[in-house]
């Protein structure tokens, strides 16, 4: 992640929004990102309103959805082809990986 602290990357790279040292507004935005990633069909007006209330504009919310969907697209293709990290950064193991070792 360009221009971001390791602690934020480390937490977000394993899907841990609560541990990432980010602002409340960013955490609220990532809540919507999680809903759209895990079960977009459940996105409700309240989910979007919470992000507006956190100070994000309508255009920023829309763009956040585009980026979320863009990376779902890349994730699916990368996983289908079976490619792994090219060493851009060492991603810490996912919790269940450490648990199963």
């Amino acid at each position: 992640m360009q221009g971001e602290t390791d602690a934020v990357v480390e937490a977000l790279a394993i899907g841990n929004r609560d541990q990432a040292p980010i602002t409340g507004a960013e955490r609220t935005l990532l809540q919507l990102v999680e809903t759209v990633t895990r079960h977009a069909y459940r996105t409700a007006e309240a989910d979007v309103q919470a992000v507006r209330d956190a100070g994000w504009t309508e255009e920023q919310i829309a763009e956040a959805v585009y980026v979320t969907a863009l990376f779902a697209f890349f994730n699916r293709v990368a996983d289908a082809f079976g490619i792994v990290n090219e060493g851009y950064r060492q991603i810490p193991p996912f919790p269940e990986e450490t648990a199963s070792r």
Partner: protein
Amino acid sequence: MTKPRIHWVNEDEAAGDLRVVYEEYMRHAGRDFVPQILKCFSARPDFLRQVTEFSATLHFSDGHLPRRVKEMIATYVSGLNRCPY
């Protein structure tokens, strides 16, 4: 070098349109290789060009959201999807 589950064309094997798109990418990115994620699209060079273009348009630039927030979203989504790439 990872051997992909589905065949892709490597830089040195690329010919025709694919070679053009690979070279355009490397020149534009200032790199001497094509990232694996992009080689996944080597079966369709026309689509690969569009993928690099819309990625640049949407992600690799400030828009309504600062680049930093977009990178956070990208990292978080990949984490949620348990995608190691």
